[in-house]
């Protein structure tokens, strides 16, 4: 990745702008779905939770929510880092940490969703 003097990635800025808005648009219905799902399963027992989350449609929606969220949160946090984290080393480190965190949360969640769905 190439960096400008301020360390902001120059080539990918327009792409990030675009992905941020597309993922936001996708997350409007997906966030509402997520709230409804959490609401339906709040305080429910294990069997009920597993039954709901094992439904293919629910599972696909959960995975889509995770994908859109990971894309959206990474770009959002990069923006915060651009604004507040100064110094070449810290800046690159913060962005790398952001990337790793986003990917880890995404992979962990998708692994769980697939495990519930398929049961490996």
């Amino acid at each position: 990745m190439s960096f400008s003097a301020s360390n902001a990635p120059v080539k990918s800025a327009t792409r990030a702008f675009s992905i941020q808005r597309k993922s936001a648009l996708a997350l409007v219905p997906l966030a509402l779905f997520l709230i409804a799902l959490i609401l339906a399963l709040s305080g429910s027992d294990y069997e009920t939770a597993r039954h709901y989350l094992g439904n293919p449609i629910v599972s696909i929606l959960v995975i889509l929510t995770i994908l859109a969220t990971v894309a959206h949160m990474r770009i959002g946090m990069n923006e915060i880092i651009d604004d507040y984290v100064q110094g070449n080393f810290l800046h690159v480190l913060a962005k790398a940490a952001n990337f790793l965190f986003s990917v880890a949360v995404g992979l962990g969640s998708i692994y769980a969703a697939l495990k519930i769905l398929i049961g490996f």
Partner: protein
Amino acid sequence: MAETRQAERPLSPHLQIYRFTITMAMSIIHRITGAGLYVGTLLLAAWLLSVAMGPDAYASFQSVAGSWIGQLILFGFTWALIHHLFSGIRYLMWDNIRAFDNRTADIISWIAAVAAFAAAIIVWIVAFKLRGVL
């Protein structure tokens, strides 16, 4: 040895210089809730993983989530998610040059803030009703 100090640059006025506006406050809260939700994705991952791992892990998750501190954090998560959602819809509107004059921008910002708080409360009332607590 030559001085390598950077040239003094003029600073733009910072937060305390400006008059309070609702759009400014919402911008700040949008960023804070975004950062909060960033960390909050760990809760979502933990919830899904606990279901995937089995009844014991799920029971552990439920006992933490059901404690008063867990409930407080979950309420904060709910509010932050709904607030970021409603607040974010304004940005999508503004991207498309809708509701863009000062007065309308202020109005939809107040609506987003109040509606998000009300919706978070309603979601929790419904959740408690479903669980038979209320």
